[in-house]
């Protein structure tokens, strides 16, 4: 059975290779710390679940220190000129699209069609996290296709990916670091403190005030946590359930749905949601790390206003 451990090993092996190549990249002024960064990332993927948690915590601090003190720099990656690329594009044509499309294609195939496939009574893929297993295997399939198409070996693909990886740099691990912050926040009672403040600040008998507090509270707390899932139990437990459902008789289902989507408006506006907002900015080589957030605010704010209007009407109407 293929489970997520195998995909972690795959990614760990990939980072280890990147670390080794980085160590030998003499054009990188900080090649030792760059290599150490990816080596620690490799270690956490290969053996993270077998090392003591406190040691892993120290690894997290080390990763942040390398990233924060400018230890990640760019090197040289056997790049080709724009002219050569245009010539290759003309030669290979639409065939270039196929490996790229294999990534979502194979992921879906495994996650949706073959997720319960069995061979001789044994599950082919683990029942949990099938989409991620699919993604990992899809990358292998797409890499094979891309190598076959371009007549290159996988080592060249990894060499080319270092160019992308080093320009994303620390942003690549930021979603993971934020997740650790989220767990410290919830273990330290940040959510209760926020709910306490909001509850003491709003008048409970005014429906509009309660709706505003719930929708804006969801958006604001999502911006703090970077994740609407973390905000939902805190804000719904602190405001939505006592004030709106029990106090004003709101319909629980529609209130929750619109409340969660108010939180999503917050996700569009916060650097804490690094995987949606900061990583793409790095991936697209934007000069402004907050460029994607800037592009989204114009959608997020009017949409939040729409959510408030919907929340004022829908949960209080009999359908």
């Amino acid at each position, binding site marked *: 059975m293929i489970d997520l451990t195998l995909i972690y090993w795959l990614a760990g092996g990939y980072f280890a290779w990147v670390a080794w190549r980085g160590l030998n990249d003499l054009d990188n002024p900080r090649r030792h710390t760059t290599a150490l960064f990816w080596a620690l990332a490799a270690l956490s993927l290969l053996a993270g679940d077998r090392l003591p948690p406190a040691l892993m915590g120290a690894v997290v601090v080390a990763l*942040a220190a390398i990233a924060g003190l400018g230890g990640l720099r760019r090197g040289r990656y056997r790049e080709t000129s724009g002219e050569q690329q245009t010539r290759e594009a003309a030669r290979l044509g639409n065939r270039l699209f196929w490996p790229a499309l294999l990534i979502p294609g194979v992921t879906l195939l495994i996650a949706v069609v073959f997720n319960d496939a069995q061979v001789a009574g044994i599950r082919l893929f683990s029942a949990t996290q099938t989409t991620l297993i699919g993604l990992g295997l899809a990358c292998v399939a797409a890499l094979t296709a891309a190598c076959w198409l371009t007549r290159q070996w996988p080592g060249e693909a990894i060499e080319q*990916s270092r160019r992308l990886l080093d320009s994303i740099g620390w942003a690549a691990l930021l979603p993971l670091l934020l997740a650790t912050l989220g767990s410290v926040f919830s273990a330290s009672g940040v959510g209760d403190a926020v709910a306490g403040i909001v509850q003491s600040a709003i008048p409970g008998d005014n429906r509009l005030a309660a709706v505003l507090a719930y929708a804006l509270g969801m958006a604001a707390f999502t911006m703090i946590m970077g994740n609407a899932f973390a905000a939902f139990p805190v804000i719904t437990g602190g405001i939505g359930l006592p004030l709106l459902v029990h106090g004003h008789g709101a319909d629980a289902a529609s209130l929750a749905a619109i409340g969660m989507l108010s939180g999503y408006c917050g996700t569009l506006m916060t650097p804490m949601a690094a995987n949606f907002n900061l990583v793409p900015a790095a991936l697209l080589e934007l000069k402004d790390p907050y460029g994607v957030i800037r592009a989204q605010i114009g959608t997020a704010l009017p949409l939040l206003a729409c959510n408030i209007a919907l929340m004022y009407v829908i949960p209080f109407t009999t359908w």
Partner: protein
Amino acid sequence: MNYWPLIGVAWVVAGFALRLNPALVVVSAGLVTGLVAGKDLLTVLELFGTAFTNQRYLVLFLLTLPVIGLLERHGLKQHAQAWIARLRGATMGRLLVAYLGLRQVSATLGLISLGGHPQTVRPLLAPMAEGAAQSRIGALTDDQRQRLRALCAGTDNVGLFFGEDIFIAFGAVLLMQGFYAENGIVLEPLQIALWGIPTALCAFTIHTGRIFSFERRLEREARALATRAIQPETAP
């Protein structure tokens, strides 16, 4: 109620506002929050380590990079731009709106991994949008290119967020149902999921309007640049 852990929130906000390195801000905020909440250093490190190990799947998207790096070395970007330029009637605005709609509808059906920043935005959507804009208004300035790419990334996010919530097996819907069940309110996932539709329609309308207004602004800027090029200013 202990309000001290809120220092961690303030720390993060201040760190991002001062544009300090986010990785450093986040980890130091975690340390500070844990310590003021009365935990010792070892416990905080253990919390870090456990959360980091449990959430390792968040870096698996990097596995797509070798494929994309290799294909880009062999002209994927150039080909995507040429391909869209040949497509008649394909403007940047129409391309992005079509992508937004497809992303929303496929996310509604649970096909979340059909798109994404490393999978589709960087290798396909952004070069195609640039190609379509260039074939209409000529070469883009660096600033225009940056704003266009940011809009592409934003379009993927909006499409994903305001589609996935309508899919009943999606984590958010199950989270809401589970939360209510714990509080004695029994709901069907479908009841929750369907109420995501009004917001999804609003999101599509608002973002479509913004895509087209961005396109008009690009055209205006290109015209202004062209007139200035034809009539060079004589004043010193």
